[in-house]
């Protein structure tokens, strides 16, 4: 494993598993996160997994207390770094059961106002765009940008589309969009420049739940198609 550890300021460190975005590297990030979940080190405040890095916020004051017991004069960062290296070198019983989350989408119409643009941009019919979007093998690499917002890999480049020149001031929550070679779902209402192709009635972010984000890094996603009536029904059922 070719990893390196760097300080991120004076209260966090970053573990770098490699520069590129691929499933193997991302899997290493999640394995390391699983070890931290297992051991819950007291000096850790929280961790933030990304595509190819895992950042740990640590408590330098807690660590400073620990160091006082040991005779060596080392900084909390160095101490935490050694702890992390030890942790990473341990073999893990971690086995992730892959979750597949189904996301029902009502494609096109008033909720997918940019579907026709994505279709004409790629010289396809709207139906072909929908089919291609549903057939993708999607992996959630990380959650970031906004609460519950998934960075999803695996979209077919055939339906890639540039961001809008004039970003919308408000994109409703549940909107499913395309930006470049990425597809995504908006968990909360926010401004944005993505091309919107549909909307899901699912709530991706619920602050009062124990697990506020529906999706977690490492989840597989399957988009399924629903019509307006099913959308309304699911939306009501969810509320």
């Amino acid at each position, binding site marked *: 494993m070719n990893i390196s550890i760097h300080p991120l300021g004076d209260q966090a460190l970053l573990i770098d598993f490699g520069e590129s975005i691929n499933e193997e590297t991302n899997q290493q990030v999640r394995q390391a996160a699983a070890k931290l979940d297992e051991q819950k080190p007291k000096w850790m405040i929280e961790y933030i997994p990304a595509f190819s890095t895992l950042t740990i916020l640590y408590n330098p004051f807690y660590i400073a207390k620990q160091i006082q017991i040991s005779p060596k004069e080392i900084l909390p960062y160095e101490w935490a770094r050694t702890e992390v290296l030890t942790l990473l070198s341990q073999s893990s019983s971690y086995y992730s059961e892959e979750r597949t989350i189904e996301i029902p989408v009502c494609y096109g119409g008033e909720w997918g106002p940019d579907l026709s643009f994505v279709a004409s941009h790629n010289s396809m019919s709207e139906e072909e765009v929908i089919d291609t979007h549903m057939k993708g093998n999607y992996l959630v690499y990380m959650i970031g940008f906004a609460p519950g917002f998934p960075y999803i890999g695996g979209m077919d480049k055939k339906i890639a589309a540039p961001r809008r020149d004039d970003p919308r001031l408000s994109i409703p929550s549940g909107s499913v969009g395309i930006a470049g070679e990425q597809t995504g779902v908006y968990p909360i209402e926010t401004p944005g420049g993505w091309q919107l192709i549909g909307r899901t009635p699912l709530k991706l972010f619920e602050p009062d739940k124990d697990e*506020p984000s529906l999706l977690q890094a490492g989840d597989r996603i399957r988009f399924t198609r629903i019509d307006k009536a099913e959308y309304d029904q699911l939306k009501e059922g969810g509320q």
Partner: protein
Amino acid sequence: MISVLKSGLMTTIQDTGRYGYQKDGVIVSGAMDPLAHRIANLLLGNSADAATMEITLMGPVLEFQEDAFIAICGGNLTPMIDGDSVSMWKPLYIKKGSELRFGQPKKGFRTYLSIAGGFQVRKVMGSSSTYLRANMGGFDGRTLEKGDQLRFGHLDSQPQHLKEQLKTVDKALSFKEASWFVGPEFTNYTKNDQPIRVMPGREFDLFTEQSKEDFFNGPFQIDSKSDRMGYRLNGTALNLENKKDIVSEAVTFGTIQVPPDGNPILLLADHQTTGGYPKIGQVASIDLPRIAQMRPGESVSFSPITHEEAQRLLLEKEKNLKQLQRGIETKLR
């Protein structure tokens, strides 16, 4: 209960932040000036993470519906009770029916009003902090508005000594101040006369030699479009040696990132959890309170500090704050 008679420019409820959910994309929020927030709580015997009111530049008008112990720490926004000016950085006792308001801002950008027992709002994901963009936490997920009624808690162990001392208020007066206050070694950071200390960011070496120099030569002006999420800085544009796509990774309070237009953004309490712009630097934690007290339009310059030195100074500062805490506890007993 406290009634809000006027809202002020941007008044929110904050605590030390919402940790543990960044992996779900939930930002930390919390007090922009963590030092002022903490001392304001210490002065009343509150826990350090009790919720305070963050007041920005133009303060609110508040009417106290019951007697209370309060403290005001941070920028000097000219606090007044029933027309009389009030000292900062010390506990005070305020009588029922009194009105706290703020005048012309003198120094700094934000001030923190703490109250014995802390402001009581429904905690969301373990924190009372307001996250405005997601309309979450704090007081109904928003800034305070005229007509809001704020509740506050009651301390299990009231600062008895202080209480006896302070409660002998002359009938003609609305409030009484403690005779002691926090020393200038803790409070004089609000004047902007020293560069902000910055350690190199992960992509520092990807910038041109010229840009690395320009960054530390400064100064940069804080753009008016700045908010709790970050300060946009205008100055000499900073450029990468070679264009490079950065894979999104975590950023923190104090990260300085540079988008393609070359104007740095200094991330603050409401920063996104991750970012994909090259990071030229990271503000030393000890200087975050100073940054938080700077106003849009003001100039900021940076000086280099090593990561080791930044951490050492942080530990030293913490020792001093612990000492201050013990000192205050003796006064309150």
